[in-house]
């Protein structure tokens, strides 16, 4: 299978093509068969590949399939590679992706554009696989852009709804900004290393030659990493480019689950982890990453406190969890970051799917204030969602606990930029954990407990079909046991995950000394758990004990509340600072001057010029054969003159030619 890695991405592409081109005519079950079948097959292939990968022992598998771009000393081949990091991503993407496909069969059953949806979804799978399998930045960028495109298509899936279309555009444009930085980063790297292959760069003597210093060798690496990170911010919705993700919830819920929680948004984390060597050479960049991640985590969490739309809450929580991941990467705990990425993929996907199931049950209602008391009505959804919530809140022994715990640990220990920085980061991380626990349980309580705040006659709640519940259950199981892979020693495990990823991250891990870690682990864990419990309790107290309280609170500190409710007015800020000037510029300069004046002018000028020439030369084509004859003769004379009287000393005229 390893020799045929290309099959894994190819299958979804075929599925997408088939559905996109022919699916329109087909009945749903065939479309399902194609979509789910292709994804499942590629999942199977991925499993097989992973098996072989283990079979042949540790180490990197690098396959060159064909040259894609070759120019001078630049080569961007269609090369796929596979190492432990890839394995993790591969399994997450294909596995979770497959589950979500199955889920979609049920969820989208009553939607229009069925085949379109699955075609996009498969296409997304294809690009995502390219992204994680690609062995050089260029191929990775292809996948990167592709997933961007698919996310645009899927957010705007209900393109008849203006809000959806706008959200799609917003996502795309914001991503473009990030991609811009990413491209600059690539160029810089190419200029520095004359190649864009991962291995070539990471093992290049130049890089080894450069010492690890604050500026990252005259800033080259720093800038490169920051630019790459800019792209990551765009893709992974970090400050200040996170604004698109909440709006992206306009898309169908499975999309939110797959793209905007489990896979695509984690691409940024993947890139940072993939190029960890560069980052470790540029501590400043690392620091930036850590700070940005931490800030984002906290920031998004605060916003999440007051959101009432169930999906919006999840969206902000996603942003803040991504922040966690970047925090991990920033403090050099790449394995922890990736681990959190995986567990997060499990429980966040689960959360979204469950939320989707809730919405499905409520017949499209998304506002938590119009729910409540659903726990009796939709038991399975409730159970699975509760599991996921516990997981994200970081209650042992569920997945979230371990990942978050290790992140906080490494944050606490990180020496980068002085110990205090680490402490501060840790503090904010902890606070975020508290908030997370709070708003997640707020969601649970509002949705499933308390008296039902919806009208029985309009909405008749019903449990979702098993095609939807099956994935929920599986994901629930995963988010329970998923964490044990990285169970710390005091839990009887020995951080298998970190060891597994060790070949990749190798020395990059700067997470303190084992001894210190050992010493710290237990207190850290206890603190984290306690925080989480506090958060849960507060939520319980506010929303079950005294339902009136939140409004009162909102009243009492109105300013804060509204600020949070309006997401710190960030969108408005952007609108004022960026959008308006741009609009003005494009209207008054680009359109009225550049486009109308220069471009249209040039085009019309060319056209009219051609017309004029034709007008002038038209008279030679009188249609009169005798005039043509004259022209023929003129031509003949020219030829004769050239042949006979060409000023060359060598060939003698006529006879010389006859000989």
């Amino acid at each position, binding site marked *: 299978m390893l020799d045929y890695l290309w099959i894994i991405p190819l299958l979804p592409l075929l599925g997408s093509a088939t559905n996109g081109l022919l699916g329109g005519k087909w009945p749903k079950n065939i479309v399902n068969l194609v979509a789910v079948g292709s994804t499942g097959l590629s999942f199977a292939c991925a499993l097989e590949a992973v098996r072989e990968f283990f079979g042949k022992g540790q180490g990197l598998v690098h396959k060159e399939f064909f040259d894609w771009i070759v120019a001078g000393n630049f080569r961007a081949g269609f090369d796929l590679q596979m190492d432990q990091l890839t394995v993790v991503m591969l399994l997450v993407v294909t596995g979770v992706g497959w589950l979500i496909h199955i889920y979609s069969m049920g969820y989208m059953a009553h939607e229009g554009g069925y085949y379109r949806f699955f075609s996009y979804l498969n296409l997304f799978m294809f690009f995502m696989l390219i992204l994680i399998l690609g062995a050089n930045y260029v191929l990775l960028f292809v996948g990167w852009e592709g997933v961007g495109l698919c996310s645009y298509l899927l957010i705007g899936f209900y393109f008849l709804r203006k809000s959806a279309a706008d959200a799609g555009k917003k996502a795309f444009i914001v991503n473009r900004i990030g991609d811009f930085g990413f491209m600059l980063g690539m160029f810089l790297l190419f200029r520095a290393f004359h190649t864009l292959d991962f291995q070539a760069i990471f093992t290049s003597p130049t890089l080894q030659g450069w010492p690890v210093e604050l500026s990252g060798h005259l800033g080259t690496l720093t800038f490169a990493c920051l630019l790459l990170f800019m792209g990551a911010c765009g893709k992974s919705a970090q400050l200040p480019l996170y604004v698109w993700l909440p709006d992206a919830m306009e898309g169908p819920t499975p999309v939110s689950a797959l793209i905007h929680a489990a896979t695509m948004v984690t691409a940024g984390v993947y890139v940072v982890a993939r190029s960890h060597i560069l980052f470790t050479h540029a501590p400043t960049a690392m620091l930036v990453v850590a700070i940005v991640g931490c800030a984002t985590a906290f920031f998004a969490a605060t916003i999440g406190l007051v959101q009432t739309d169930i999906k919006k809450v999840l969206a902000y929580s996603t942003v803040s969890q991504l922040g966690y991941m970047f925090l991990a990467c920033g403090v050099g705990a790449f394995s922890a970051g990736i681990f959190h990425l995986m567990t997060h993929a499990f429980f966040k996907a689960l959360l979204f799917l469950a939320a989707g199931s809730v919405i499905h049950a409520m017949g499209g209602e998304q506002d938590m204030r119009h729910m409540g008391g659903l726990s009796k009505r939709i038991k399975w959804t409730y159970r699975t969602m509760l599991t996921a919530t516990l997981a994200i809140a970081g209650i042992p022994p569920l997945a979230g606990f371990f990942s978050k715990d290790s992140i906080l640990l490494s944050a606490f220990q990180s020496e980068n930029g002085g110990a205090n920085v680490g402490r501060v980061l840790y503090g904010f991380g902890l606070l975020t954990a508290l908030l997370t626990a709070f708003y997640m349980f707020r969601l649970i309580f509002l949705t499933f407990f308390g008296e039902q705040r919806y009208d029985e006659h309009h909405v008749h709640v019903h449990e979702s079909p098993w095609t939807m519940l099956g994935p929920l259950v599986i994901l629930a199981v995963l988010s329970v046991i998923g964490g044990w892979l990285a169970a710390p020693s005091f839990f009887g495990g020995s951080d298998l995950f970190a060891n597994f990823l060790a070949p990749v991250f190798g020395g990059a891990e700067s997470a303190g000394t084992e001894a210190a870690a050992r010493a710290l682990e237990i207190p850290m864990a206890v603190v984290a758990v306690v925080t989480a419990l506090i958060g849960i309790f507060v939520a319980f107290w506010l929303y079950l004990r005294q339902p009136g309280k939140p409004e009162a609170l909102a009243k009492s500190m109105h300013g804060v509340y509204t600020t949070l409710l309006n997401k710190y007015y960030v969108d408005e800020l952007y609108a004022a600072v960026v959008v308006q000037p741009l609009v003005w510029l494009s209207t008054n300069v680009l359109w009225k001057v550049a486009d109308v004046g220069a471009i249209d002018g040039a085009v019309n000028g060319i056209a009219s010029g051609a017309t004029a020439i034709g007008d002038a030369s038209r008279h030679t084509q009188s*249609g*009169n*054969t*005798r005039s043509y*004859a004259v022209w023929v*003769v003129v031509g*003949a004379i020219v030829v004769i003159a050239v042949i006979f009287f060409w000023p060359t000393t060598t060939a003698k005229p006529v006879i010389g030619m*006859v000989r």
Partner: protein
Amino acid sequence: MIPTSYYLVLSAILFGLGVVAFIFKRNVITIFMSIELMLNAVNLAFVAFSRALGQLDGQVFVLFVIVVAAAEAAVGLGIVILIARNRQSLNVERVDLLKL
């Protein structure tokens, strides 16, 4: 005996006359004939050279030219008949449209 240049000059003259006819005649058929005249002039030059150089290739070429001329005449006169049928005129100056 006769120098080759005589033949060449003669063929040049004939060719020139052919050109004149080619330009000045109005009748399609006559223009056709003037083309044949030019071909003949060329043939003369060919034969003259082949004799002068003691190689027969020139005469072979002449044969080819004649064959091509025959083919050309067959098709060309077919076209002429068509023109006459559709335009009721053999004057090239009246045949100045690409379509009927």
